[in-house]
């Protein structure tokens, strides 16, 4: 993955596969504190503690079409490579929260990339899902709620 916006698309696809009907994507660019944060929260079926522990292992996957599961491992690696942090909180029946942070000015931090394409692909493919995209930077806060479309 060359862009963080592709990682976002990938993790949101996980939320959709988990049956989420509401998915929030929060992107915060805080250049002053030198942090870029990406949060993806869903109300999907959630995971057990055991699954959460295994989820960053690339050789763990719940799918049956192949034996590796790279999505979250790749995002975690991207944040690690740029001096960031990675957390997953999940509860069965309630949903999952994924949060990745990055050192904003780290030379290895991937560019955010084409967020617009990611949002269009998601909104068009899943009109039944309520997406709330929030993008905060020094210019202000942009919120796009699919219910307003």
């Amino acid at each position: 993955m060359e862009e963080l916006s592709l990682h976002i698309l990938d993790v949101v696809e996980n939320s959709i596969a988990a049956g989420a009907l509401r998915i929030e994507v929060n992107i915060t660019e805080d250049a002053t504190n030198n942090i870029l944060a990406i949060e993806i929260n869903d109300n999907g079926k959630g995971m057990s503690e055991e699954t959460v522990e295994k989820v960053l292992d690339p050789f763990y996957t719940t799918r049956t079409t192949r034996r590796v599961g790279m999505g979250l491992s790749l995002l975690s690696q991207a944040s690690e490579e740029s001096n960031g942090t990675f957390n997953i909180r999940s509860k069965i029946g309630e949903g999952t929260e994924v949060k990745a942070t990055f050192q904003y000015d780290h030379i290895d931090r991937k560019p955010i990339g084409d967020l617009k394409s990611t949002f269009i692909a998601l909104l068009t493919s899943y009109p039944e899902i309520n997406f709330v995209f929030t993008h905060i930077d020094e210019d202000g806060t942009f919120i796009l709620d699919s219910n307003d479309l």
Partner: protein
Amino acid sequence: MAKLSIKDLEEIRNKVKKTAMLREGISNAKITVHMGTCGIAAGARTIMNTVIKIVEESKRDDIIVTTSGCAGFCSKEPMATIELKGEAPVKYSDLTEDKIRRIFDEHVLKGKIVKDYALVIGSEREL
């Protein structure tokens, strides 16, 4: 750094509205872009956005655009499946923008399978 502006949000809204209107019709064709991790890393988002654009340009109101996960052929991504009403689904592999445009023109619009790019006909689950 790519930042979203109000103009971008308006553009997103208009695009999604147009495609949502398309969905309300009866479907005669379905285009599924494979968007697993492997697909996305290989360029599936560009394929998806191209599909949205060409469906919109065609003004056809009977074509459904959707996504699926990994089909198990990661090295062949980006992939898309075309299903015409009453016909077996066809999986196309190693896609580019030009290839998906040709597939749309020849297969979706004229019903002729593009053998040059087709990987398999039929669903793997039925084998």
